């Protein structure tokens, strides 16, 4: 347990000093998104990697958080800090209610149902023009501020977003190594055996679905206030697939893996500017390759590969 805490501290320090290495500039802006995507990937990972329940509709919860935040602050002038827990709570409640019927389904059927849910939410964003501005989006969302400091520069947003992201990381790490986390993994491995020793699988799945939606909605709020403009295109099926790709690449059932996957997929397009339009080919290819050749994700495959390499070298040294 001490080791876990130590790892988290190192991670935190790295995150805190990262801006010094990048000296502001436009990459800072990208690192803000790495933070938001890390939150989202962790949210999906709690559900998929730990509890073994897939969702292809998480972009919908992300979008609901963003739109609730955007509409209540930009259109109705409410205080963003008040709106944030409200939005997250409402989305969590919605997920809790949908969760009961939807999580009765398993495997492929669950995937299809969550996909359908995500698309319905997306259609609502597009069609309820009076509230959301429709396809052309919603603008004029205020930046978050504390007292007289507004989080309107990239560096400030970075620290704001990462404060939340680190919080979510720690929260999830704790959860994963606890009584409830074990129950989640037990459901993943054998739902029936978990139920027989008294784990209320149905209720727990719904709760983790709701928790996952709350974290996604929170990420949505932060997204809305740092972008100050949102449109439905960011919350469609493609983004749900992108989140899935992050989780699978990083490693199912690993919190740091989610960070790795989010960082990789957020930074990749920036380095491959030319490849911008081809990102879906890359995601598709990555998903297939990972599932076929590295089902443990990068967090597990890379250390394994390094270990093998070291052993090879060690062997050569002995000979």
């Amino acid at each position, binding site marked *: 347990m001490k080791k876990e805490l130590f790892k988290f501290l190192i991670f935190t320090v790295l995150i805190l000093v990262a801006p010094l290495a990048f000296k502001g500039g436009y990459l800072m802006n990208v690192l803000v998104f790495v933070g938001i995507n890390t939150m989202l990937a962790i949210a999906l990972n709690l559900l998929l990697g730990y509890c073994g329940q897939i969702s292809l509709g998480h972009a919908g919860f992300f979008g609901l958080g963003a739109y609730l935040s955007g509409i209540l602050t930009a259109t109705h002038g409410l205080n963003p800090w008040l709106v944030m827990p409200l939005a997250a709570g409402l989305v969590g409640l919605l997920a809790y209610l949908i969760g009961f019927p939807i999580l009765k389904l398993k495997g492929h059927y669950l995937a299809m149902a969550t996909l359908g849910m995500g698309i319905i939410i997306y259609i609502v964003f597009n069609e309820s023009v009076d509230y959301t501005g429709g396809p052309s989006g919603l603008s004029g969302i205020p930046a978050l501020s504390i007292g007289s400091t507004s989080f309107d520069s990239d560096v400030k947003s970075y620290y704001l977003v990462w404060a939340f992201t680190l919080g979510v990381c720690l929260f999830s790490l704790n959860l994963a190594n606890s*009584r409830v986390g074990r129950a989640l993994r037990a459901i993943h491995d054998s739902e029936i055996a978990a139920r027989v*020793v008294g784990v209320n699988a149905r209720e727990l799945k719904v709760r983790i679905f709701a928790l996952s939606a709350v974290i996604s909605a929170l990420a949505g709020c932060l997204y809305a206030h740092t972008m100050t403009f949102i449109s439905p295109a960011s919350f469609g099926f493609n983004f749900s697939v992108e989140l899935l790709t992050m989780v699978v690449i990083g490693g199912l059932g690993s919190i740091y893996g989610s960070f790795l996957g989010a960082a990789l997929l957020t930074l990749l397009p920036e380095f491959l500017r030319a490849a911008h339009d081809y990102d879906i080919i890359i995601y598709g290819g990555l998903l297939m390759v990972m599932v076929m050749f590295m089902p443990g994700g990068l967090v597990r495959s890379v250390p394994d590969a390094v270990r093998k390499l070291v052993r090879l070298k060690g062997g050569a040294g002995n000979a």
Partner: protein
Amino acid sequence: MLEVSGITQIFGGVTALKDVSFSIAKESITGVIGPNGAGKTTLFNIISGIYTQTSGTVVLEGRNISGLPPERLAPLGMVRTFQNIELFSSMTVLENVMVGMHTKSSSGLLACSLKMPWTFKEEARIRDNAMRWLEFAEISDLAGTVAGNLPFGKGRMLEIARALAADPKIILMDEPAAGLNSQETLGLADVIKKIRDMGITVVLVEHDMELVMDICDRIVVLNLGSKLAEGTPREIQENGDVVAAYLGDE
């Protein structure tokens, strides 16, 4: 302790169980035997709440538990093991048994995630207890092994340890000796007797007749979904119908 009365189970057109009744005394070992397809696993699935029977009732310590799902039965003291072992294969042996203590602990989702002070104490208690059950099942040296990598016999023992961690009053075991070598079967017989001596009622489905006759206090025989006979091991051995059913089948 446990009373099963008039259990009938129909799947589509197939009658898997027909009007099966028997009762089980506290702190006894009861064997359920019968040819393949007799309905033994189905009976366990009904008693343990996995299936809901077409008709009939199951009463545990005076309480009607018909139709209750397994997660409600565990707190009442009923657990089981499976014919095809069901382990949490990606978790360590110790963690498997720690999950067994789910109903004997209470920290909720938020308390766990926020590491509230009391969760540390509970976590330590869960770990210590789980370790003790591993020692009981003589697999404590494997505590850190991933359950999916266990040899089959150890897996069977782990499943029993996990069930015991739930502090049951009654444990149902579906073919616990299947796939074990003779050495392991002898060990299993000892473990089952020890479990009974701790005051836990044991019901087991088993094909290994030597084992059944050796450890069971009573035996219930199923054939083609109906109860064929019931009695002490000796009575069953002398029962012509039972012999006929087995000879006719094998």
